[in-house]
């Protein structure tokens, strides 16, 4: 039993890392622009599909590098055309618009690539386990965790060491003052959105290796991302990271005792957090 629990704990951290990656992109966008991006899952799917298209030409690694960038590019366009008009309005509107956008993205991928699952293969040497006992530590999943660590570090560096990052952080606290100080907040929000979508595209490539590549791949992953953000605390990126890991672990441990509840348990946790400490684990009081 302890071995089972331990395994599920480790495994939960791995899955949690993936959830965190998805949720971080969503959190970035929410914090700076106040936009609840329901289309995040759609961008994730597009990242996966673009990678699938690129693999025959660039190989797995090339696709991994390029697909998220292309997805981010799409994100930049979407932000400029569709999201920008909604700033200053009730966040309900961005929620509804991105909801509609999610429909379009899902239907678009189905139209272009068909409704069937596409066979997405990861390089052979990645997809074997490291040992017989710890069989769930496959090369691919270790790679995924490593990639998430790199991405989080990269994000941290961008936010703390670059001018763009500093402006994003400042804008998260007080966008009006930042604008008065002469920063072009339009471009700032645009780039921030693109950064968030880059993370979604990256998550999409990783997801396609683990799951089947289907147009609906994004819609199943979007809710856990919101849950991670709420549990970790709105407005806090470390909180989102923690939230993602937490729901991964919670899901994994629940599987030992009550397997069919492993998806529902994250909502129970979110409900408890909201009732007891609404600002989340690392969130700030009165932020939203």
């Amino acid at each position, binding site marked *: 039993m302890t071995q089972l629990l331990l395994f599920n704990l480790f495994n939960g951290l*791995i899955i949690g890392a993936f959830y965190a990656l998805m949720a971080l992109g969503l959190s970035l966008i929410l914090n700076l622009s106040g936009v609840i991006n329901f289309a995040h899952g759609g961008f994730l799917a597009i990242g996966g599909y673009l990678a699938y298209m690129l693999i025959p030409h660039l190989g797995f690694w090339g696709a991994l590098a390029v697909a998220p960038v292309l997805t981010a590019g799409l994100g930049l366009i979407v932000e400029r055309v569709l999201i920008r008009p909604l700033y200053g309005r009730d966040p309900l509107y961005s929620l509804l618009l991105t909801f509609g956008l999610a429909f379009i993205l899902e239907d678009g991928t189905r*139209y272009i690539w068909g409704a069937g699952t596409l066979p997405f293969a990861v390089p052979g040497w990645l*997809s074997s386990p490291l040992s017989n006992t710890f069989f769930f530590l496959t090369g691919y999943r270790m790679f995924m965790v490593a990639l998430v660590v790199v991405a989080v570090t990269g994000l941290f560096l961008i936010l703390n060491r670059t001018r763009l990052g500093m402006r994003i952080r400042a804008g998260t606290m007080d966008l009006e003052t930042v604008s008065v100080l002469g920063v072009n907040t339009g471009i700032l929000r645009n780039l921030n959105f693109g950064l968030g979508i880059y993370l979604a595209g990256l998550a999409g490539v990783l997801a396609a290796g*683990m799951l089947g590549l289907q147009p609906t791949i994004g819609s199943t992953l979007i809710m856990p991302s919101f849950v991670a953000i709420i549990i970790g605390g709105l407005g806090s990126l470390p909180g989102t990271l923690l939230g993602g890991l937490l729901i991964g672990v919670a899901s994994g441990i629940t599987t030992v005792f009550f397997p069919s509840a492993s*998806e529902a348990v994250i909502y129970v946790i979110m409900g408890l957090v909201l009732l007891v400490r609404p600002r989340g684990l690392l969130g700030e009081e009165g932020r939203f």
Partner: protein
Amino acid sequence: MSNGIISRSLDRRSLIRAAAAAGAAQLATPFVITARAADEVKFGLNDPLTGTYAELGKNEQIGCQLAIEQINSKGGVLGRKAQLLVEDSTSADTGIAVQKARKLIERDKVDFFLGNVNSAMAIALGEVSNELKKLHIVTGGHTDSVTGTDCHWNVFRVCNTTRMETNSVSKTLFSKYGKKWYFITPDYAFGHTLQEGFEASLKQFGGTEVGASLTPLGATDFSSYLIQAQAANPDVIIFLLAGQDMVSALKQTVQFGLDKRFHIAGAQQELEVLLGLPPEARIGTWVFEWYWVQPEVPHVKEFVADIRKINSGKVPTARHWFGYVATWTCALVANEQKTLDPVKLAKALENFKLPPEIALMPYDTFYRAGDHQLMPTLYVGNAVDKGPEPEDLFKVDELVKGVDAALPVAETGCHLKWPA
């Protein structure tokens, strides 16, 4: 590579090309026609064209389309032209499925009602078709109660019950691969009844169930369940999932190397899933409900060629066959009985045997009288990563007659009530 929905006119053009090749006369267009001709015999298909089951619904639709083409080339139904009306039931919203059913039956006044892939919808639609007294052939919804406790006089089903599937493969699993089984079961009726079926087999053969994991529908990560499975040390890990869940689970199983330590198997498997898996994950012992490579069975090659023409060159799967058989069943029985009256047709369909060029199976294929379940052949075999042809991914080892694998009528719980 795109097998998405092309514009209406393009679809019509490719159909015309196919029909010309088949030497047919006039064709029915696949989508709803606004000018509803009163003298045409209408077939209404209610299937998911969006969401998780979109591919399966689309394939059933294509099977129906081929059948309509052929029916019209042979003189139609009762001398009148056949027409296919299709409505998207969505993959998850039963309210919409029911609404569309009423639209097809009440507004469009279809003569025959076909569908659904989704088991819950198949049941709900059966209620509607029963209330409105329309002949209803369920194409691809597998839950046992459709021809069991929820059976109706007007409802017939083409695809197998879960019990038929488990019974056909369980002996092989037991004798060839081992006595200790672990189940990965999706938490809905389809999964539960498959597990019950296998448990009954285990009891019969004297095997052991070392454990089971109930997985939520739409689970993305199966690692924790596979961890439990591995800890239980079975001989066979039995996957009772379908569609996307099956793809994710098998991919992850192979990534964990579990296929090298345990035998992987299950009941229902579909070509759509095998095509969606990377080659190294195409493993396991499964049951197919129809397969396109059957060199000894006549007419199959022609069917494959005909479907290829309207399916972007891809081969038919069991889903195409479901739609094809369901549509032709209605036309055949109507032409034989020279009527469209649902009660008369339903009575005539009991013990109705499908002709070989429709059945496309080695043994006699007929609808059983007591529960209206089709008795087809089941194909037990193993998935292969690569076959002689790119889409030949399943090697059939054994053919099982459906009537041997099915529960006797008395045990299905079906009590048909005919109208007065």
